[in-house]
């Protein structure tokens, strides 16, 4: 069971002459499954007032960091420049402890010759000792130089790199030579051989543990997200890799109301619908925005094009208001948080939930446990009302009738597209499509 939210980025642009009366038409892409996403995958652009799927956003590297020491690294680096190394032994991958020992002259103990670095894997206890290092340099650069000197792949890469550099220089000189004929013609660099002679012997020795060297730790990236349309930043991460906080976020989950379907609590059916019967489905609208919202829900009369079965959906209450959580209220306590959960979703699992159920108005509990289908719809002066509402949520009832479609196809899920128009008290407006997925089994 899930509710998917629509992003219009796949909708083809209408040609001005294609249709004269295009307003009010249902977008073609609503029938495309790929246009619907989970709410946590979406962003809400406050400038464009639109939902943005991953295709409508672009990411750029905010900074790079080492996932082991959690230090920030320059963007040009690909490996940790500090002392983070991993064990090269197959199926180990443990982190290496690095220690150093000073080497002094045997004749004169006071004479300092250099340092040797000792790498020890704390899991498999594999060790590696560097040659004598006389000039001060970082451990990362020492290991890098060992890799370049000792490994075929690395040395081959170095040869290719030098060849490319020489070739670029040669082509530049060649252009220069064409203009000034009096200059000496440049010498064309020779490409390195395709299979170096030493490659075979070296690759066999590569498997030998004596030829292994500690592996450098690749860096991770933290990304900044932008809206492709207005180019404004949506997510800006904090500069601390160990913190989950962001300096700026525009997650859809923080402002778009969530739609959660449920069944009345006295219905002990396994799923949301049964063939040939009219069943009641509760649609819970949960407001995450900081202001109260007015919600208008519309649906399509032709639901057969979305389903293989024949589906009839009846929603009497289409306009209602949903409150909001007070910004000053502390939702950290479970007894406060439970107030934001609709009655139809509460269970007897915990003490707090049970107490909250008993505190909910009797009228709501009776409305959510109808004796017959149809009892659940409440109206006042002929206007349908929500069956239940709370601090930041509202529950409306709907009826779903499913009949077997052509060819007696057995599809376990019924899809109901809903068009949501949401207007907040501070004047923000957004409208979007959602697709309710009502499974035959599982609630």
């Amino acid at each position, binding site marked *: 069971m899930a509710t998917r939210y629509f992003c219009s980025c796949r909708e083809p642009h209408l040609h001005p002459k294609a249709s004269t009366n295009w307003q009010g038409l249902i977008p073609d892409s609503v029938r495309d499954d790929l246009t619907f996403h989970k709410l946590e995958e979406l962003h809400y652009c406050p400038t464009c007032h639109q939902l943005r799927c991953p295709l409508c956003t672009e990411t750029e590297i905010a900074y790079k960091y080492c*996932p082991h020491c959690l230090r920030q690294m320059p963007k040009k680096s690909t490996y940790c420049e500090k002392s983070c190394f991993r064990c090269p032994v197959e199926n180990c991958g443990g982190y290496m402890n690095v220690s150093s020992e000073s080497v002094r002259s045997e004749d004169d103990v006071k004479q300092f010759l250099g340092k040797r670095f000792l790498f020890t894997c704390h899991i498999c206890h594999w060790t590696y000792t560097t040659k004598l290092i006389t000039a001060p340099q970082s451990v990362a650069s020492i290991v890098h130089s060992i890799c370049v000197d000792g490994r075929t792949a690395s040395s081959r890469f170095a040869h290719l790199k030098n060849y490319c550099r020489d070739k670029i220089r040669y082509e530049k000189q060649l252009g220069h030579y064409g203009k000034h004929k009096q200059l000496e013609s440049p010498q064309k660099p020779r490409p390195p051989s395709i299979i170096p002679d030493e490659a075979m012997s070296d690759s066999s020795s590569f498997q030998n543990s004596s030829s292994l060297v500690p592996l450098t730790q690749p860096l991770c990236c933290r990304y900044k997200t932008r809206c492709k349309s207005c180019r404004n930043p949506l997510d800006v991460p904090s500069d601390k890799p160990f913190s989950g906080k962001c300096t700026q976020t525009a997650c859809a989950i923080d402002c778009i109301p969530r739609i959660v379907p449920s069944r009345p609590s006295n219905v002990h059916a396994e799923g949301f619908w049964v063939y040939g019967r009219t069943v009641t489905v509760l649609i819970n609208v949960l407001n995450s925005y900081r202001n109260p919202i007015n919600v208008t829900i519309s649906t399509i009369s032709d639901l057969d094009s979305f389903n293989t079965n024949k589906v009839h959906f009846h929603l009497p209450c289409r306009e209602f208001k949903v409150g909001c959580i007070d910004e000053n209220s502390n939702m950290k306590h479970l007894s406060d948080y439970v107030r934001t959960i609709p009655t139809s979703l509460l269970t007897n699992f915990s003490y707090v939930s049970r107490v909250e159920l008993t505190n909910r108005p009797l009228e709501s509990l009776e409305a959510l446990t109808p004796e017959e289908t149809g009892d659940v719809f409440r109206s006042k002066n002929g206007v349908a009302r929500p069956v239940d509402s709370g601090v930041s949520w509202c529950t409306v009832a709907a009826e779903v009738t499913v009949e077997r479609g052509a060819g007696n196809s057995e599809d376990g899920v019924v899809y109901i597209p809903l068009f949501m128009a949401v207007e907040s008290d501070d004047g923000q407006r957004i409208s979007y499509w959602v697709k309710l997925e009502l499974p035959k089994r599982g609630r």
Partner: protein
Amino acid sequence: MNSEWLETASHNRIHKSCMVQGSSFIAIQGDTIIDRNCTVIVEDAEDEDAKTTNGETGGRIRRQPELKVGKQCFFKEGCSVNLSLNSPEMVIGSWCIIGNNSVLRDCAAIGSRVIIGKDCRIDADCTICDCCIIEDGAHLPSQFVVPSLTKVSKNLEFTSLDPCYRRLNEETVKNELLLGKMAW
């Protein structure tokens, strides 16, 4: 109140089938559930000294390890948290789920809003930063570090999570504590 459960003054619920050792060195902030057949063991330095020959520790003073758990955590059925004398302390942040049959042994720290799946093994000196998801069956070797907003697969591959998981993970834990399920 169900008789199968013990409830502390700070609303922590501990199932009676759990084995909790060294409770003097365990501090839980509140609203935490420790489900059936869980094991929480913090070794007692004094007991360990007594086991050695005539209480002699070779002049070394052992430091008593402590387990600190934040608020609103859920230790699911069969999970195990062990803290030996080799580790000074283990800190588990708020809004964390330790999945069924997962084992945490001498971890350094687990941040807030961390969801550890079923049958996971977290070895000594591991650090898991805030807002992380460890998938079912993952085995984090010792000294492993998981940066914040990261999903770790069974093969220890990292996937970045969106910032909305800060809220999502917290809601997941709260819904599990209140309703016994993820409500949405």
